[in-house]
């Protein structure tokens, strides 16, 4: 079912991409051979979807990228995750921040020019780091015979995690300077601290902590600040 969902989404974005391309055909003929450059700032709204599924999990993240070379974008992301789980026998809370830096390569850079010059089908790499703390409170030990025992709290502990990410995605200029994007990320944990008393449930920016690999999706809205115009160039490699 997941695969079907993914295919439908990809298909819809491709339609969007093609319609956008034909629309812009006429107007862009005149102003071709120049590229708008500027930092693009965006927000990942996939965390809002999670809010409906798991209200006890709140995540927000923003990102920015900039085309440092033709077709190559440097990327930075920061975000925050907060978790409050109320289980029958204990409450679990966790909060922390993450940051990711890396680069994306736009495979469409030459393909669609000069029609849809800023649309992207891209692949990229990230390194990610998170700092977070968690704790368990109101721990109850259930015992049918002797009676339940209120154990109290486990104090909070701060931990760090570092991982690598492979990203593949689509980004479409839906309105001038305004982009919609969808991406899929495969993550591999490189190193993380563990709390021997209590397992981490979620690592900010990474997802479920029980696995050393992860798969996640992001849906982004972003805006490019049109700072400068530069002559269009082909990528220096690929």
């Amino acid at each position: 079912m997941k695969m079907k969902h993914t295919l439908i989404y990809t298909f819809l974005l491709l339609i969007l991409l093609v319609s956008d391309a034909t629309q812009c055909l006429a107007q862009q003929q005149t102003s071709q051979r120049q590229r708008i450059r500027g930092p693009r700032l965006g927000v990942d709204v996939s965390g809002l979807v999670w809010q409906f599924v798991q209200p006890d999990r709140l995540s927000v993240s923003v990102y920015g990228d900039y085309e440092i070379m033709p077709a190559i974008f440097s990327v930075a992301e920061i975000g925050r995750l907060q978790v409050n789980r109320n289980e029958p026998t204990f409450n679990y809370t966790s909060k922390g921040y993450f940051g990711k830096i890396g680069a994306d390569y736009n495979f469409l850079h030459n393909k669609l020019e000069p029609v849809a010059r800023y649309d992207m089908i891209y692949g990229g790499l990230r390194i990610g780091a998170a700092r977070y703390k968690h704790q368990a409170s109101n721990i109850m030990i259930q015992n049918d015979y002797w009676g339940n025992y209120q154990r109290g709290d486990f104090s909070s502990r701060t931990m760090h995690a570092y991982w690598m990410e492979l990203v593949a995605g689509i980004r479409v200029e839906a309105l001038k300077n305004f982009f919609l994007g969808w991406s899929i990320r495969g993550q591999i944990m490189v190193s993380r601290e563990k709390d021997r008393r209590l397992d981490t449930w979620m690592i900010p920016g990474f997802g479920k902590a029980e696995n050393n690999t992860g798969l996640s999706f992001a849906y982004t809205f972003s805006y490019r600040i049109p700072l400068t115009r530069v002559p269009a160039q082909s990528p220096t490699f690929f």
Partner: protein
Amino acid sequence: MIIGFIALLFSCEEPECDKTLRNEAGFAFLTIRDSIETDTLIDAITVRGLARDSLLYDSSANRSAVYLPLDPSKDQSRFIFQMGARPDTLQINYTRDERFISHACGFITRFRMQQATTTHNHFDSVTTVNPLVALNENETHFNIYLSPADTSGL
């Protein structure tokens, strides 16, 4: 697409606890006859915790071992064993710490045995075989040796 999306959401739901968290202490009944330890079946045994009304075993027949829950709120548990006219009281002293099992299942207490003592009506002595009582299924932690007088007829 809506069905696909709903299916995706449900696949992300957290699992329920899928194990029964058992951390009972196991007591095996033995007899020493001619320097040889032999497992011994008790005809009928009744066990309850001290100052507890409900029974853990009620005239249970042909038992070679009993599995008893330890008190997670105190550093000792006392049990009363009735297997003849006079009951025996068994006291176990331990230290406790709480171990995390999973987010779905929560915590259990892990008990580390320090001392076990018994009265000597039908019991001769008690020894600790495995001092750590953690998540387990019918492990033996203690050997209870029966008085020779009680086993001569078995």
